């Protein structure tokens, strides 16, 4: 697991690559989001395009990240869900919680 980070028009875009799973990816994801918050970022866009596997812990981390960012007055949104991640968010009904975009421009403008 590796998480790239870049900024665009005041939005921090996080791009995890690989597996977001228990013991590895989940911790990295949490750290990345906490770092953003500590640096004062409040508009966070998580691009999931390069995520190959996500387990229930990974999904749990996404939810935690969402609530943590919201509690600090920010907004975590999702970009480019791979079909398997999309399915899982559907099944868990978390799709109703997250704001999801397919297009980065659109996502960035939405903040």
């Amino acid at each position, binding site marked *: 697991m590796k998480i790239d980070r870049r900024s665009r028009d005041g939005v921090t875009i996080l791009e995890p690559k690989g597996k977001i*799973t*228990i*013991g*590895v990816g989940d911790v990295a994801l949490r750290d990345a989001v906490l770092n953003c918050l500590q640096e004062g970022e409040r508009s966070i866009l998580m691009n999931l395009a390069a995520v190959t*596997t996500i*387990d*229930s*812990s990974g*999904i*749990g*981390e996404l*939810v*935690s990240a*969402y*609530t943590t960012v919201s509690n600090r007055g920010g907004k975590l949104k999702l970009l480019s869900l791979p079909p*398997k991640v999309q399915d*899982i968010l559907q*099944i*868990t*009904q*978390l799709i109703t*919680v997250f704001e999801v975009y397919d297009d980065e421009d659109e996502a960035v403008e939405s903040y």
Partner: protein
Amino acid sequence: MAADNPRVHLVIGSEYENIELVQIVVEESLRKLDLDEEAAHAISLAVREAVANAIKHGNHQNPEKRVEIDFGVDAGEVVIEVSDQGVGFDPLQVGDPRMPGNLLRPDGRGIFFMHTFMDDINYSFKPEGGTVVTLRKRLASAPMASGPQKENER
């Protein structure tokens, strides 16, 4: 246990990194069964959850404690048993993670994943302590459990 094919059995210490090992054994074992990619991924994810629970809740990540994974095909079903050395729990106490009160919880989706991705999951508890979860998925080409089972001869 009745089995069409010899079973594969794997024992690991209770460390999350060993989930990858289980994963590749399951994936290699599934490869021979000619499942479609989606079914294989579903089984693989369900096993991941079962092993994660065994490591986390069953064995409390004590690397000395063992998680055992038993993999086989039985009467047209993939059957995987995951067991730990924990104290067990009451599956009836586990809530539905889609309930409004649970939706934003960071945990509580593992067993739900197993249910979703498999045809059947069953918990049992060993008298000496330890949880066994049995995961089943029918091979697409296999008849339903109630139908004629020509493979089920012993």
